[in-house]
């Protein structure tokens, strides 16, 4: 599948508050912990070899489960495969907590849900739709009952 690699690499160079050297272990049997520069930009987690400018890879942080594993490490499980997790080792419990929190909040779906919550509440409290002033009240992505407007996509073969 093609993707806009240069643009994604440019994105990985954007400033981010969540960027640190962490121990990182892949999900496969036999993967070991390696020191990586891990950087959170929008809903992607980029990881670099510590002395390199180009990231090794990018993980999309949607539909994933982030959990603390022990006091200083957390894991991310993707693809509904609870046992296949990426493990990240932090330097402190506090840092670990920050990462878990940040990754959860970075998810687009998480932000969308909060937006819908605020929209509903503001409307309830004020009688006004706060998205009207921006001309986006009809955008499907911001609809309250988003899930009811589309037919299920048959993507079983994907």
């Amino acid at each position, binding site marked *: *599948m*093609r*993707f*806009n*690699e*240069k*643009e994604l690499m*440019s*994105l990985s160079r*954007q400033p981010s*508050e*969540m960027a640190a050297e962490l121990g990182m272990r892949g999900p496969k049997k036999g993967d070991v912990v390696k020191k990586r520069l891990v950087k959170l*930009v*929008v*809903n992607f987690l980029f990881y670099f070899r510590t002395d390199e400018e180009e990231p*090794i890879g990018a*993980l*999309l942080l*949607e*539909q994933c489960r982030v959990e603390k594993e022990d006091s200083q490490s957390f894991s991310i499980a*993707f*693809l509904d495969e609870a046992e296949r997790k990426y493990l990240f080792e932090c330097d402190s419990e506090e840092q670990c907590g*920050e990462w878990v*929190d*940040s990754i*959860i*909040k*970075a998810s*687009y*779906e*998480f932000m969308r*849900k*909060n937006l819908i*919550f*605020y929209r*509903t*509440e*503001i*409307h*309830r*409290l*004020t009688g*006004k*739709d*706060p998205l*009207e002033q*921006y*001309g*986006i*009240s009809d955008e*499907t*992505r911001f*609809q*309250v*009952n988003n*899930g009811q407007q*589309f037919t299920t996509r048959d*993507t*079983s073969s*994907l």
Partner: protein
Amino acid sequence: MKLHEKLLTHYLSCTSPVDKEGYLYKKKERNATYQRRWFVLKANLLFYQERPGDRHLLGVIVLEGCAVRGSESDGQFAFSLVFEGPGLKTYRFAAGDGPTQESWVKALLSASHCYLSLLVRDLGRQYEEAKQQQGPGESRHSSSVSALKQSTNFFPVQGRTAVVREGRSFSACTVLQAPSTTTKVVAKKSPKLWPRRNAHVTPLNGPAPLYGEWPLVGFDPLEDFSKLHDYYGQEVKKAREEWLRSRRVEEEHSDGHLIDLG
């Protein structure tokens, strides 16, 4: 760089709905011909394949750091995604008709994570204001929008210096103010698509924390939203003018719906 594609395709096919899908023509870079592709927009990801229901995805475009522009020079119903930066691409598209073009442009303008992040922060603040104003006087709530423009300190910086991103990456975010193409839609419609008095919608993990506690992911917005708004108002104005020029001549009557940015 390895993009873990399975994560993207899995996200695409999971139960949460897509934001938009349909046929568009995509211009090939090399020989300037157009190829019809089926596009699926979900979050800040634009996927494309030959036909709906195809097993094979041809590609994906991550929509961060790009501006959406009307492209009159590319022909009718054309628009482009311009990634600003050295060596970065411009993707060119054409729709089958005006309404389709307009609807895709609108959807793409509000697709980026950056945009959503700004919007959520803003709504979070409006929510807090609305809660505080809830007791005394109904008339107060309508001032929350003007309060947005007048008050000076919306985003308390959490003890770190603000990191200002280069202007190009704000492109998608500048259209927080309604562009003229959308006013026709907004003007007459009440939000019928959403139930009134629905107080039972809650986010998955409970209400988000106060805006001041949001992680500053990707960028740190300027402290004063109204200043940000004014500062980029010029870019919005320019983009709007360019967009208006690219529309068909018959739609001159839309002038009556313009918002005067002053």
